[in-house]
């Protein structure tokens, strides 16, 4: 319960800060010369994209450790991270077209990175579907771990493709080998937003983790309750 409450606090704080970041982004950060107001979406889009991909890597890492340690907490974390990753991927896939319409002139283009974010989303949905399809908890955890690890390994291939295809997508301007080519005020806003999204991820994952923990406790208590009921009946 305490964990759930902590998760709620972190999430609400992060949502408030997100509003704050947007005030800063809209009012105090200069307009981009070529893209105008549309560029503002970058402050949501890119942090969400970073976390959508990072969540997949964390799912994979938790899965690797799960297969070695067989600790159900790792499985619970992986499931939580995958659900939050799904949401973040959905954010990327909705904010992307909103930006794409004025800038590219089309809602959707089969651009490499866009396409591959879609696959990331599909990967998450597949992961959650597999979890739903398997009933035995231990088997579910093992299967999910296998898929999670494969998903994590697929991400670098996705990243490679970004550089191999001719793309309409703006090339990375912050996370690249050389220094970020962004005016300082924009960079600060972006970094703040990244911080807020990190907090959001943490908050959501903690809540989700606590929920599945509670559910398991409830199930255990349910079985226990039935057990004692039977004993009482016997007496």
């Amino acid at each position, binding site marked *: 319960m305490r964990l759930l409450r902590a998760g709620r606090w972190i999430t609400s704080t992060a949502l408030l800060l997100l509003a704050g970041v947007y005030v800063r982004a809209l009012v105090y950060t200069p307009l981009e010369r070529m893209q105008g107001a549309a560029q503002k979406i970058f402050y949501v889009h890119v942090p969400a994209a970073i976390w959508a991909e990072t969540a997949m890597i964390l799912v994979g890492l938790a899965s690797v450790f799960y297969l070695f340690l067989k600790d159900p907490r790792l499985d619970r974390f992986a499931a939580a991270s995958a659900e939050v990753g799904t949401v973040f991927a959905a954010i990327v896939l909705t904010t992307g077209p909103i930006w794409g319409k004025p800038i590219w002139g089309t809602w959707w283009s089969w651009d490499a990175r866009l396409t591959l974010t879609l696959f990331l989303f*599909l990967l998450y949905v597949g992961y959650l579907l*597999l979890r739903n399809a*398997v009933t035995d908890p231990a088997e579910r955890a*093992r299967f999910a771990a296998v898929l999670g690890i*494969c998903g994590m390994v697929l991400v670098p291939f*996705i990243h490679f493709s970004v550089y191999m295809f001719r793309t309409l997508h703006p090339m990375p301007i912050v996370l690249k080998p050389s220094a970020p080519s962004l005016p300082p005020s924009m960079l600060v806003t972006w970094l703040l937003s990244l911080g807020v999204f990190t907090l959001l991820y943490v908050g959501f994952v903690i809540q989700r983790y606590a929920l599945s923990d509670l559910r398991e406790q409830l199930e255990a208590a349910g079985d226990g309750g039935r057990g004692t009921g039977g004993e009482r009946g016997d007496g």
Partner: protein
Amino acid sequence: MRLPEVVRHSWTVASKDLLIEFRSRTAIVSAAMFVILVLLVFTFARDPTAVAAVDLAPSILWVTLTFAAVLALNRAFQLELENQALDGLLLAPIGRSSIYLGKLLANLVFVGTVELIGVPLLALFFNVTVWPYAAPLALVIVLATIGFVSVGTLFSAMTVRTRVSELLLAVLVLPFMIPPLMWASRATGPLLAGRPLSDIIGWLKMLAAYDIVFVGLALLLFPATVNE
């Protein structure tokens, strides 16, 4: 002595599957029919005056091969469902990796056979010249097939015991098939247009890297999908 043993054991598993397949021939004939029908669907769904066949051929080839592979992949572990055959296989004194390699090999032979039927038919139906580029095209197809069959074999071991196994396998494996599919179809285009091999060497390298990574990974992960 370890390596030959693995090879021998996996060949035993593979030959068992292939023998079952060869005796009944239902799956391979169905898969071949499926490929022919998909090619027909493409023939009638396209406007021959709008797009030149040679431009469309790589896409048609890879869509057809992907669908055929997804359908074929279910077969490997479905064979083991009857009479708890999988338990018997797991009790056999062979390593888990031999079982995986055996299944992979059988799947590769199966999908390879389907591809051997599909490619000439594509050349025939769409009037594409394939013969002069047969060797490099075969290389592209082999590399891509190893890539997605390796992942598919691993996943089918998991999905086969779930409720909606066929659909779930397709949903899980397609995101993994798409990168190799993309590279393979990008490589097939220049190839069929008569470009030199050096144009597609980058795609071939990507495909090879994908194969090595995912075959290795599947070998490591396979025990987790069958351990009781």
